[in-house]
């Protein structure tokens, strides 16, 4: 029986609503606040107020593979170099949390993954140290330099700095995501990325989805709108420019290698082809969060069993 693509996508969105994981969300907020406090205590007046920058701040979060991004903005004079800033913050957080969490260096952030608590919940906070671009002007211009620890798309490790206005980035996504259904599309793409382990940065996906809405007339039902964005990505990802809303000199498209862009284009191509060929395939790309199955899909899945229900033993189908 064919799958109703729109119903399935609605189910996927419902299944991944962030509020369904309120407990975990609260645990993240609690840990986030704790880290903010220890950083403030350690760096005192060298540090401006840390703030959230991830999907939660941008209203594009999904409840699978949950994490918080925390920007820690330092004053210009706090460190001689960006590398020293990154290393010092890593060393401090490592010493502070090494017994209760895995602390590791990531592309521009320091990842803290707390060991599972009694409920089996894991809290992940990525701390992104940044240094104000101009002495004493952060509060006015919000501009920060970030340290690139390891190869970041086309940007070499250690050799470059990402200068960005993170606040503007957040506001940009929030503003755009208010457009009709753009937020839904971004969430669906994140569900796809998370469940299937795709390596693309969320920020990239957010910006290219926004660009698709800018460039194309995206209308119709949910699948038609999603498909239009997928087609835009497929056709344009290799050449598209995605200026960083926080710093127009940064091209976020550079955060993906040419190889990854080509792979992403193929991802879109195969997805469109396979879903159009057989609507059931949409379930292979947009998975439900198994913790929160959609009631409608549950009853539909049960009907699959009816065919075999009359048999004492279901027939095997896979052979080797």
């Amino acid at each position, binding site marked *: 029986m064919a799958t109703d693509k729109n119903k399935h996508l609605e189910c996927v969105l419902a299944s991944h609503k962030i509020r369904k994981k309120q407990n975990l969300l609260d645990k993240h907020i609690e840990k986030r606040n704790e880290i903010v406090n220890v950083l403030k205590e350690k760096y005192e007046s060298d540090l401006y107020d840390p703030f959230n920058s991830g999907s939660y701040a941008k209203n594009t979060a999904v409840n699978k593979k949950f994490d918080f991004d925390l920007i820690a903005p330092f004053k210009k004079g706090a460190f001689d170099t960006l590398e020293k800033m990154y290393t010092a913050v890593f060393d401090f957080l490592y010493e502070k949390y090494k017994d209760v969490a895995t602390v590791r260096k990531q592309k521009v952030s320091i990842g803290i993954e707390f060991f599972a608590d009694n409920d089996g919940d894991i809290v992940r906070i990525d701390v992104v140290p940044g240094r104000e671009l101009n002495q004493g002007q952060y509060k006015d211009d919000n501009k920060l330099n970030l340290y690139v620890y390891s190869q970041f798309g086309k940007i070499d490790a250690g050799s470059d700095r990402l200068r960005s206005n993170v606040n503007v980035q957040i506001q940009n996504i929030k503003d755009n995501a208010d457009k009709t259904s753009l937020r839904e599309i971004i969430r669906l793409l994140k569900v796809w990325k998370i*469940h*299937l*382990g795709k390596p693309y940065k969320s920020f990239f996906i957010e910006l290219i989805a926004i660009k698709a809405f800018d460039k194309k007339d995206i209308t119709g039902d949910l699948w038609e709108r999603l498909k239009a964005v997928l087609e835009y990505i497929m056709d344009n990802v290799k050449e598209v420019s995605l200026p960083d809303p926080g710093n127009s000199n940064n091209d976020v498209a550079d955060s993906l290698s040419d*190889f990854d862009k080509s*792979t992403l284009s*193929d991802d879109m191509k*195969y*997805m469109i082809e*396979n879903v159009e*060929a*057989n609507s*059931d*395939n949409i*379930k*292979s*790309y947009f*998975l439900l969060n198994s913790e929160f199955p959609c009631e409608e899909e549950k009853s539909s899945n049960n009907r*699959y069993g009816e065919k075999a229900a009359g048999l004492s*033993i279901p*027939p*095997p*189908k*896979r*052979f*080797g």
Partner: protein
Amino acid sequence: MEIEAVITGFAGAAIISSFEQRGEIIYGSISMTEQGVILPFDVEIYPPYPFQFHDSESIRFINKELIAYDHINGDGSVCVHTLHHPELSEKLVLDLNGVRHWIIKYYINGQHDANYEHIVVNHKAINGQNNVFLFTDVDYTFKKGMHGRFTYSLLREGNWKKEIYTTLLVQKFKINGYQPVCKWSSAYHQIKENEGIFYFNDTPPVENRRFTVKSFHQLEGYFSQEFLRTLDSVRKQIRNAKYIEHIPLLLGYPIADSEIHWQAILIPINEFPNYGEKITGTNTWVGRLKEQPILWTQTRNSSYSYFFGRGAFHPKVTDAKILIIGIGAVGSMVATTIVRGGAKDVLVVDHDLKEPENICRSEYGFIPGLTAKATELSNRLSAISPFVEVKSSEGLTDLFKLVINGDDTRWRDSIKKHLDEFDIIFDCSTDNDIAFLLGDLDLGGDIFSLSITNHAKELICGTKQNLYGWLRQIFHQFDRDTEDLYGPAGCWNPTFKASYNDIAVLLQFALRHINYCYKESLPVRHFYLSCTEENQFDIKLTQF
């Protein structure tokens, strides 16, 4: 005569002595003139001409004075290979042109080929028996003058053209306290070993650049005096040995920057070629070698790069530690294919017994009888390649079944740790429990879960991400008839219908696709192959 007419009409060619048939062979001699150079050739034409005899031309142009040049055979004939032509006159023109080009390239221009040309060894069978030593790489750098003992094992006796071929494996060298071991897999080091002697030099033991010397006396300056003393002590040690008639002597030499080659001589134990000679007026003795014909025997470089030189999988496959779970029709074909493609480290897992009816569409044989699939396949894989370390297990999947639903996370962690050691896992078990577990363990390596539908209409390959979910989803789509299964004798043992060919054509396609993805560094996606038989047979690849 047509032959003489063609030769006379060929620019630069002339007949020296007329062509005449003696027995089955036509003999004559000609001269070839090119850029002022005149070379004579005896010509022999054999009955198949203008057709080839197996891979050899059936005409020979012989001049023994040319033996030191490239592309001259041991009998002085020019090594020409020309295009096929069914008409004698046309073929002879092609062959004369071949000789002409040889004269220009190698005689007049004195060109030497960049590719190494192996020396020509005049080996002969002894009493109808040919001994062939196979050697492979060792982690050791041989230098000029090094010598010592080596060990070798009898691999198998075979036959070709009414002669016996005895294949011998060089196992290790013993030199100055070191024992560099030949890089065969561990299975081959279990075979009983015999001993021989070796000598390494910086040049091959040749005359006329490319032909092995004929007499031991010609090697007098080739060996060090120290080696000749060693040879003499070996002579004394084994002169009373029973049961052996010869002792092998390996001669090694470099042929490229990092490649060495070995030739082999059989020394009769009752006729060693060496003797001592006192230098007149002194008490000093020097080692000498007699005018004694050398019994050259055969060697083959069977190292990994030669063994798989004609084709192998990408190094991401061959260098990988590979696990194959389930070795029925699909799994056993995966195993033999990757081992023939150069895989070096394979674990095969299956709890099942091989039955006679398994054989027609898998990689098992009738002779081993009823036995564990894992045991028979691992033996077969070792028999295919001397470079694969194969292990087998009948119990690993039992362990999976125990941990899949258990509460004890230590077992689960232990299984994960073990499976994380593998770079590639082929799950051919068709067991949904195993697919579920593999998907759930979040393993570091690549996973390919391979299975087929009834009548081998589709081959399905699930990969790591969302493995179980995707398999469930895709098998819903291929809701094939399951009425037409084979021989459900009893309640629960139906199997699919498909021949070896039906399965192999899909599996080889799938493995080539996987190898292509590795070669091009493409992500390996879930995919399936579907067959169509409308007007013609076709296979379609669908990727996800």
